């Protein structure tokens, strides 16, 4: 039963919110794949009313929950209990849902495998020797393992879509500004957004409908609350297949994605190959911008006000250095250092400003492409899931595997990952122009129907 159907039963009184919560808590407590870093054993059952009536939801640990420990997978926030709910969490509760627990992620969302978490790696329910992707790997795995039907992730450069692909679930990165980021602990504000992660496109649309709406506390929030009910595509659409990204992928990925394209073609849609300019630069532009913003965003973790290190003594700069040195992991330190460098006097022209320029060019390139086609298609990940430990040894390879997902973050456009085949760890990514979520969800539903 989908979450949508289940919520319907709850509203009719046929299903009991406390039973749903109990079942979810049981799975979360057992947690064979280390999906959760915190389980809210005191959670009260959801409401019997609202879009998400009675639904247990798993929330990525990068999203604040009032009074419930929130660490973003980092030792430096161990024990930190936010004093406020993120806007999207408020919305979940208003729509009758309940938060079961917080899901594991790469430390400060910096990683594509959920292995840089200070609380150990999450394993892929499809095959425990594989990573679930990241950084929202805990949410992807919690859905794939069946602990919940609905989970929230956050996506800075692919962190929702990547684990969706690797765990064979659905993940949407909405248009920048569609969802409030109030309460999303920042890695790189200008790139990231909250995103729904579910087993089906229908539930993805349901979750998106619930958490939407304009939030005056986030000045970049531009969305309207809206009910999305994808049914597939009634009319043929023009789908531009980004050939370079398909061709550059591993064989298994290539095969699955080409199959999905043929299925769309067979269903009467117009799939054509397109060239996308500038793909050579997207990964470097993305990492320069993300790391630059991160170097500033993560400066606040100094042990003074919350989190690790309140008992350190010494001069302030020594205390800061010790707290940060002891509690940030290697990947976080690497990105802070690189970002600091990229923003430094004498270097920011060469790195930060150049990356901004590249970002503008990518956005222009998307505009050009969307004047020709309705949607763009590519693999979500050019590779199949890494084995545990594999990516940590070769961070550059891990960074490069973000080539398909980062363009949408750079341009702020929506992108969705839907399994090429049920149960297979290959995702098909569809991208559309700003605020084209309705079309995107219909198209993703179409992929589910025709694959």
């Amino acid at each position, binding site marked *: 039963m989908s979450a949508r159907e289940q919520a319907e039963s709850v509203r009719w009184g046929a299903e009991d919110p406390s039973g749903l919560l109990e079942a979810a808590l049981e799975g979360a407590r057992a947690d064979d794949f280390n999906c959760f870093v915190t389980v809210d054993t005191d959670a009260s059952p959801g409401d019997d009313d609202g879009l998400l009536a009675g639904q247990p939801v798993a929330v990525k640990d990068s*999203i*604040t929950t009032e009074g419930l420990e*929130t660490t*973003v997978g980092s030792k430096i*926030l161990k024990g*930190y209990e*936010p*004093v*406020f709910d*993120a806007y999207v969490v408020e919305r979940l509760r208003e729509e009758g849902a309940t938060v079961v627990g917080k899901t594991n992620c790469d430390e400060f969302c910096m990683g594509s495998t959920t292995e840089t978490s200070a609380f150990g790696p999450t394993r892929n329910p499809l095959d425990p020797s594989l990573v679930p992707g990241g950084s929202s790997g805990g949410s992807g795995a919690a859905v794939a393992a069946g602990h919940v039907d609905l989970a929230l992730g956050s996506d800075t450069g692919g962190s929702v879509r990547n684990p969706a692909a690797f765990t064979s679930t659905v993940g949407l990165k909405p248009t920048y500004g569609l969802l409030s*980021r*109030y*309460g*999303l*602990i*920042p890695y*790189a*504000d*200008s790139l990231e957004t909250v995103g729904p992660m579910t087993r089906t496109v229908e539930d993805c649309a349901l979750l998106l409908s619930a958490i939407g709406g304009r939030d*005056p*506390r*986030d*000045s*970049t929030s531009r969305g309207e609350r809206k009910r999305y009910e994808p049914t597939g595509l009634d009319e043929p659409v023009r789908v531009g297949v980004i050939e370079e990204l398909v061709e550059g992928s591993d064989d298994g990925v290539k095969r699955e994605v080409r199959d999905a394209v043929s299925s769309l073609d067979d269903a009467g849609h117009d799939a054509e190959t397109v060239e996308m300019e500038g793909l050579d630069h997207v990964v470097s532009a993305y990492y320069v911008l993300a790391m*630059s*913003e991160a*170097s*500033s965003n993560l*400066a*606040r973790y*100094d042990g*003074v*006000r*919350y989190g690790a290190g309140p008992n350190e003594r010494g001069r*302030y*700069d020594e205390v*800061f250095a010790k707290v940060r040195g002891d509690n940030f992991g290697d990947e976080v330190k690497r990105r802070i250092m690189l970002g*600091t460098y990229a*923003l*430094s*006097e004498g270097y*920011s022209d060469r790195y*930060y400003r150049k990356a901004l320029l590249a970002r503008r060019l990518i956005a222009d390139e998307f505009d050009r492409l969307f004047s020709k086609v309705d949607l763009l298609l590519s693999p979500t990940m050019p590779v199949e899931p890494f084995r545990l430990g594999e990516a940590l040894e070769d961070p550059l390879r891990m960074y490069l595997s973000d080539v398909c997902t980062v363009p949408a973050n750079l341009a702020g456009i929506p992108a969705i990952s839907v399994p090429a085949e049920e149960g297979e760890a290959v995702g098909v990514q569809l991208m559309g122009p700003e605020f084209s979520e309705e079309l995107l969800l219909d198209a993703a539903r179409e992929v589910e129907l025709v694959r």
Partner: protein
Amino acid sequence: MPVIGLEVHAQLRTDSKLFCGCSTDYHDAEPNTHTCEVCLGMPGALPVMNESALDFGLRVSLALGCEVVEEQLFYRKNYFYPDLPKNFQITQYEFPVGVDGSITIQAGDGERAVGVRRVHLEEDPGRIVHMRNRSLLDYNRSGVPLLEIVTEPDMESPEEGREFLQRLRTTLEYLGVFEPLDGAMRADANVSIEGGSRVEVKNISSHRGAERALRYEITRQRNMLKRGSEAVLETRHFDEETGVTRPMRTKEEEADYRYFPEPNLPLIRVDEGMAGAAAEGVPELPDQRRERFREEYGVTDEHAKRLTAEKELADFYEDVAEAVEPRAAASHVVDELLGELNYRELSLDEWFEGVGRETAVEWETEIVEMLRGGEITDVSATDVLRDVLDEGRSPAAVVDEKGLTMEGADEALKCVEEVIGEHRETVEDYLSGKEEALNFLVGQVVRRSRGKISPREASDLFDERLEEEK
């Protein structure tokens, strides 16, 4: 000739902070009680622009004759310090509120326009209280809107620096955007003398402090030059208590702030509506008011200048001048009232707080009226004013009780004449320079009037009467 430029930080008196809803009314509050997730920089909290701070900034820019920047942007200034909850400060950088304005100051015998390079908004950090071996943090101030006003290096003396700060403060007060509370205005100065490097002096927190800091720094640099050395490019800290500037640790000046645009605050577009609303918020400014006082009330330029130097005073004067002859009011307020207040180290505000502003206006009006109507003499008027200020009684009551009416004044004068007539010898002693002789004469008058005439008044009367004979 020294060259001086100032960077002034003034807190804006908006109701709430620059990026959150916390109240700015924290001056009497317990530490860390005016805070929230935003001004404490908690992870996930986001800043939202306070429209009224922008409006205040626009008003100031317009009042200083600045060109308003139509597209403004906030940046992050990154540096680690415990008073900064995010370890970066959100501030305007390349695109401030206004650029290229000026303030006219008195310089020597003439006037000079001091250029204002830029006016920009930023958030105030928290406050650190250093104890013997620990430091306490109070974030009540964190996020209060600050307006930074940066001048061109157009000032040439400590007096001019002080004058600039005074003018700026008056303007901000006139605009209703500033409240002169403790620490609400702070300044850094750039000072150099011919043949020397520029030295930055930080931590100036009053007009007087500015003058002292500048004077100290200029003398220091001149002395170095005399000894054949030269001031080096550095940042120095002014210690208000000792009046001395000291070098700061070099580490603190070699900062690379890694500015980049704050991604959570969209570009601000100042449209005609906003600019128009701000223009409406700019009232008559001190210089314009001074001009009007001269024209409308016929007061001297000196009086007009003194009266408009503070908004509170100018308002007070206008209320008094509404009821009595404006020139008489001006000279009494400037020549008598201000002097007496100053002698008592009492500000106009403090006097108002004591008796109520309306009453103060009423009493001042009464004194000027009685003086104009010839009911009391200049001498008694001063006496009355002193009692009004010291004892908080109405002029009428004082006059009544002391018999200071012209009638009473005649009595007193008669009494003084009688004493002079009866003690001619003592009078001669006094006139020949024996100051103590006056005490005896005053004593006689006080006794004869049974205390109705005060020693002070008697002494004044003798002075006046015997002036001719001296």
